């Protein structure tokens, strides 16, 4: 273990700007969510609980804000001056934005959260020591900490419920940080199958749990570097460029009529999730 090794390794994982990073070859997983289609039914959140072995913490801990929903549905009122039901309810599904330049990655003291070559922001549970600096520095506040030992002492999954757990996903103990992984277990399985057949993962071959359960197809997910994918087409149509912190269309006089935007883009986090703005009658 030499100094050279240290410097080399370090240089490999750290980048200044996503453009300088290795090209996303052949995958860059990304998402787009149509807020016009979202009806706020929470099916995605429930599916996420089932797929990723999230603990249901119970009423008391929920009230203490110690809930573990990787995917959360936020509700906003867009038309404050009107009375319900015309108040303009809007739902926003929020999960880890898988930033290309993630603020959480640089601050982790042990390097437990890193960037993968297919553009995911990974979390290594075994390496995490629970300093919670990542969550403190996350602008979206989408990281969830295991405040208690849910699997054992809290007994979230009693013995008879063991078969309910997804065997492809670990059950996390107390003291580690976790967050949305874009259902990395599904992605890896699909990538491995495709590699065995000497091809890349085709559009529609892999779905995230939230996407799969969405009744209105509000969520699209896929490979952003594959021109055949729905995500690629949507990002292209909305003129949203992954590697920009301000989109060309927004620089125009009077803004743009296109609905695509990324949340807190100007912080230069380069998030991998694009939202499609809700169209309101009052705005038309």
């Amino acid at each position: 273990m030499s100094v050279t090794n240290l410097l080399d390794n370090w240089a490999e994982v750290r980048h200044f700007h996503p453009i300088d990073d290795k090209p996303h070859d052949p995958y860059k997983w990304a998402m787009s969510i149509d807020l016009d289609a979202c009806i706020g039914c929470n099916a995605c959140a429930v599916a996420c609980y089932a797929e990723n072995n999230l603990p249901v913490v119970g009423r008391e801990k929920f009230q203490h804000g110690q809930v573990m929903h990787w995917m959360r549905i936020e509700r906003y009122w867009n038309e404050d001056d009107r009375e319900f039901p015309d108040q303009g309810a809007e739902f926003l599904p929020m999960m880890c934005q898988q930033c290309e330049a993630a603020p959480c990655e640089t601050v982790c003291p042990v390097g437990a959260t890193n960037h993968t070559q297919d553009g995911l922001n990974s979390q290594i549970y075994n390496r995490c020591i629970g300093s919670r600096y990542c969550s403190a520095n996350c602008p979206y506040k989408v990281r969830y900490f295991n405040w208690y030992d849910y699997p054992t002492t809290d007994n979230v999954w009693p013995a008879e419920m063991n078969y309910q757990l997804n065997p492809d996903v670990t059950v996390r103990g107390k003291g580690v940080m976790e967050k949305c992984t874009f259902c990395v277990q599904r992605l890896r399985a699909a990538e491995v199958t495709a590699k065995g057949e000497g091809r890349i993962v085709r559009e529609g071959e892999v779905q995230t749990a939230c996407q799969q359960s969405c009744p209105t197809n509000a969520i699209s997910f896929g490979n952003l570097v594959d021109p055949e994918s729905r995500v690629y087409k949507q990002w292209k149509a909305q003129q949203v460029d992954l590697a920009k912190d301000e989109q060309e269309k927004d620089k125009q006089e009077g803004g743009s009529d296109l609905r695509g935007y990324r949340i807190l883009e100007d912080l230069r986090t380069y998030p991998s999730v694009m939202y499609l703005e809700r169209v309101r009658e009052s705005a038309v």
Partner: protein
Amino acid sequence: MKDIREDIAWAKINQDVMKSLENPRPMYWVILFFAALVLAVGIGCEVYQYRTGMGVANLDNPHVWGLYIGTFIFWIGMSHSGTLLSAILHLMHADWRKPIYRFAEAMTTFSLMTAGLFVLMHLGRLWQFYYAVPYPNERWAWPNFQSPLIWDAMAMFTYLSSSVLFLFIGMIPDIAIARDNMHSGWRKKLYTLLALGWEGTDRQWRNFRMTYLTVACFLIPLAVSVHSIVASDFAVSQQPGWHVTSFPPYFVAGALYSGCAAIITLFIILRYVFKFEDYMTLPILKKVVRLTFAIAMVWTYLNCVEFASVWYSHDAASKGVLIQKMTGAYAPFWWAMIFCGSIVPLIFAVKRFQTNIPVIFATSLLMNLGMWLERWMIVSPTFSHGYYPWTWDHDQWPSMIQWGIVFGSFGWFTLLFMVFCKMFPSVSMYEVKEMVYHRSLHLKQNGTPVEQTVEQGVH
């Protein structure tokens, strides 16, 4: 009034200080008992938290840091004034520091140790803390050198080890005095070991001076860097209210401020408990009070700079945090911080109060409270008013467990500090002698001229 009486005999200095190792006032045992009690409460809370999970502290998901980090900064900050007194004022030849720098340096060491505890017990997986240490391992996994927490750990460890070294080196001649005057027993053996065979020869003094000066010079940049690095934990992050360029100097000023306030508190306690009235004199206290007043004003100024730069930056998020601090759920604490930190020290502008011990004692406690609140007000409000609206107005109040651990840390610090003061001379005997000698020389000079050779012999 003079800093110290010129007519104290050297033998009396030895006697008075050695007495502090033997029989302090009964108040000493009262303080020790309460410190141990408070520490026991803290340990109980920590054991419960360790076994159950961090959730018992009532931290929650967007609000992942709380009093622990705030109190951690408080203890780190407190450690800075010891170095100011012992190293910086040493280089500036301010000789009034001589009777009081020893306990200030001890305060530095013990408050750093207390801060270190907070780093550890704040971790979700305390048992894996060594992942943050760059040690050779078969996985070739290194800590992330880009993380300010790693800088923090390294800066703190460097500072702690150098402060212990500095404290020890400065004590060697005094430990030798203790060795020579102590009746035989385990303490005599301990002093014999620690005195490193000190005999007070010319050569030993020469080497001692050089070493002491070198370590002092080494320590000064550390004192500035450590709190700047703690400030980077916040300034390097992206969060509104933390991402402020002026944080490092602001933190260093705050550190010196709270450290000086703590020195005043401990000064008054030690003076009473160990009967040090002849050495820790009112004129010296007055000088410390004036120093504290000056630093308080610097801190107030830097506060204004921060508010102004946030206000005029037109950065909506940072401004939102500032407004929320002033008017939101944290407002009572924030205004208490302003009151204790900026308004209360103004009392020292009145000359009469600069030597009034009850007033100074109460004021120093209030200033420390203010500085503790300041650290909490840096950490918590940002979590309840960040960039993302989902976190807004999301207040989080510490649970009794969290309060218990914070409380316990004060017991831990007091216990260590008080035990140290009874184990080792907390007034530097050889430097007080030096001081007395210089003063008496000065007196003689005014009367009859003194031979040059005598004065040369001193240095």
